[in-house]
């Protein structure tokens, strides 16, 4: 099998530094083979290991009496009363969406949905936070059309309403658009599923779509700074299949209504690698996968490709012994692949076999606990001159004497113009529980069969974060809090997607640290914890970074939806009050 010897060049191609490679050799007590190197490169990528951000994320408040599960699982879980929980998370799909806007955005929606239904929730709402380059940049129109069509194409088909989001334009995103997608789901608190594997001898089961050679290296790609030739290389992008995802949602929820599942994890950006490693790591068990049993879409696939494939619409789970047939019947009914591909074993190793031969054997703790954790140098953002900060839309300084003209220009400009063109392409009403869809302060989605509603809002103002990361981070959290409050909801918790440039630059790292400190301060002051999130770094092309963009997704609860508030003035003769300074 892995007859390749690992050369310095191969190490570099995997996005690992010399020091990181030395660490791998030390952890393994020998040189890794190519398959093992591939697995380390995935697990130690910025995307999976959070090596530049981990120590800073620890500063965010994550606890409150209503938090059932904070960061660390597939999604965060909060208690919404009556034995029910809201489960939610936000995630980025920035680089793939720049390369192939339709499929990049579509698979972004697919990925975040899986994070949520993996935990036992039926997804009830999608949101999307989008940043594009200047409206007159030659690429912008194509990117906007593709991203919006992709989000709609996936979300509409799976039958989850897209109820809101936000859209900004700024030249800083010309070479790096941001596509952040959020999903909110609802589960019963006694039916929440986690990823920790357990039970020596329990079967490890693969379900969903077959594995192809999709996006091999995709996870490492998302961690490497773009250079101008990225488009030429045309890396494999994944094609999403929302129809299969819809079947997967129904099949998983059907199996989850039994007690056959021990643990379950979706195959995210790093596919079989991250799912199997995370399940083994959380459960402190060993895991063996017999790779020839993986359902394959293409012939001649080798273990390296199977472990690194990013094929979509797949899940990994551990079942209780003897429950395979029952589970298989459910997945067959939904025309999905089902295969027992391994088992939980003694020890702490991930052991990979292929036709009976051991092709890889890695101590799991070394993949997770020994992953690099960098304290990257960071310099605080200097106080900026007004002129340095992007304007809040079209300038109206010349119209001081013409208020109507100024308002017209403002609401006609790209920052404030109506987003109807976008959200009319999304089915915002399927499931028939949307009480307030796009167009207001926060979306309201009734919890099916109750009088409660979840309020959801995504916000951040990147130019504030650029001017002053601490105040900008604070403001983004506070804005979601205000938007939720404005519907009559009690804000409960947030998720986030932290989009920044190259963390190896101290000024960018300074923006990152500043925003986190600001977010932490606001969350603490508002008793509004962070329960999940995602970090996307290296959003930079040829040394030009994006504006610091920590997108916040807030979720709140309206106990009696008939008592909600709406944004529109309801009639003539009513009193208008201004609250606050």
């Amino acid at each position, binding site marked *: 099998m892995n007859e390749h010897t690992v050369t310095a060049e191969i190490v570099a191609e995997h996005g690992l530094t010399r020091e990181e490679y030395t660490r791998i050799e030390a952890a393994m007590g020998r040189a890794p083979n190519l398959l093992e190197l591939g697995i380390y490169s995935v697990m130690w990528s910025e995307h999976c290991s959070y090596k530049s951000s981990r120590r800073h994320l620890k500063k965010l408040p994550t606890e409150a009496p209503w938090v059932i599960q904070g960061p660390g699982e597939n999604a965060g879980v909060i208690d919404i009363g009556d034995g029910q929980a809201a489960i939610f998370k936000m995630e980025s799909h920035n680089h793939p969406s720049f*390369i*192939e806007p339709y*499929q990049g955005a579509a698979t972004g929606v697919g990925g975040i949905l899986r994070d949520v239904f993996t935990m036992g929730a039926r997804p009830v709402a999608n949101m999307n936070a989008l940043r594009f380059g200047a409206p007159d940049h030659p690429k912008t129109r194509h990117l906007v059309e593709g991203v919006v069509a992709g989000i709609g194409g996936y979300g509409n088909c799976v039958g989850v309403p897209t109820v809101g989001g936000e859209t900004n334009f700024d030249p800083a995103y010309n070479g790096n658009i941001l596509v952040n997608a959020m999903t909110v789901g609802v589960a019963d608190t006694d039916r929440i599923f986690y990823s920790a594997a357990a039970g020596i001898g329990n079967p490890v089961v693969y379900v969903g*779509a077959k594995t*192809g*050679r*999709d996006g091999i290296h995709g996870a490492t790609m998302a961690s490497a700074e773009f250079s101008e030739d990225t488009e030429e290389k*045309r890396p*494999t*992008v*994944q*094609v999403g*299949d929302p*129809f*299969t995802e819809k079947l997967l949602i129904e099949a998983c929820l059907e199996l989850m209504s039994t007690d056959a599942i021990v643990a379950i994890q979706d195959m995210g950006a790093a596919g079989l690698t991250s799912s199997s490693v995370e399940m083994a790591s959380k459960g402190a068990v060993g895991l063996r996968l017999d790779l020839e049993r993986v359902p394959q*879409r*293409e012939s001649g696939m080798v273990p390296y490709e199977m472990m690194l494939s990013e*094929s*979509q619409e797949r899940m990994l789970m551990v079942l209780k012994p003897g429950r395979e047939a029952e589970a298989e019947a459910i997945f067959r009914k939904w*025309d999905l692949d089902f295969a027992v591909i391994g088992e939980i074993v003694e020890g702490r190793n991930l052991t990979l076999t292929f036709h009976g031969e051991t092709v890889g054997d890695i101590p799991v703790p070394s993949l997770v606990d020994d992953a690099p954790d960098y304290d990257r140098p960071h310099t605080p953002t200097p106080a900026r001159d007004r002129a340095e900060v992007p304007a809040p839309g079209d300038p109206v300084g010349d119209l001081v004497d013409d208020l109507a003209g100024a308002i017209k220009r403002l609401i006609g400009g790209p920052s404030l113009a109506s987003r109807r063109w976008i959200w009319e392409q999304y089915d915002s009403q399927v499931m028939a529980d949307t009480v307030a869809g796009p167009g207001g302060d926060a979306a309201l989605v009734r919890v099916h069969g109750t009088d409660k509603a979840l309020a959801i809002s995504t916000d951040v103002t990147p130019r504030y974060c650029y001017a002053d990361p601490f105040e900008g981070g604070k403001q983004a959290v506070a804005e979601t809090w205000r938007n939720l409050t404005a519907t009559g909801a009690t804000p409960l918790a947030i998720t986030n997607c932290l989009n920044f440039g190259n963390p190896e630059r101290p000024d960018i790292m300074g923006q990152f640290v500043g925003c986190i400190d600001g977010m932490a301060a606001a969350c603490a002051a508002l008793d509004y914890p962070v329960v999940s999130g995602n970090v996307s770094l290296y959003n930079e092309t040829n040394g030009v970074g994006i504006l610091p963009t920590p997108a916040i997704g807030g979720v709140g609860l309206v106990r009696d939806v008939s008592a909600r508030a709406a944004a529109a003035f309801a009639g003539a003769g009513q009193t208008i009050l201004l609250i606050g300074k």
Partner: protein
Amino acid sequence: MKARIYVTLKEGVLDPQGAAIRGALANLGFEGVEGARQGKFIELVLMEDDRDKAEASVKAMCEKLLANTVIENYSFELE
């Protein structure tokens, strides 16, 4: 001059439509369909009479608009 353009997914790219077609044909009792791929078929009527010019122009149309060369291949015939 007429151009008949075929746009197909690259090898190895997931083709959900093709897979669904194969499944539906099997459900309908058509056995022995080993593979199915769905692509696009575009017909253009061109004002151009010069074959070489038409060829260059259709190629450019495919690259720029008709095919998404990240995931698709194209081929064409002129007549």
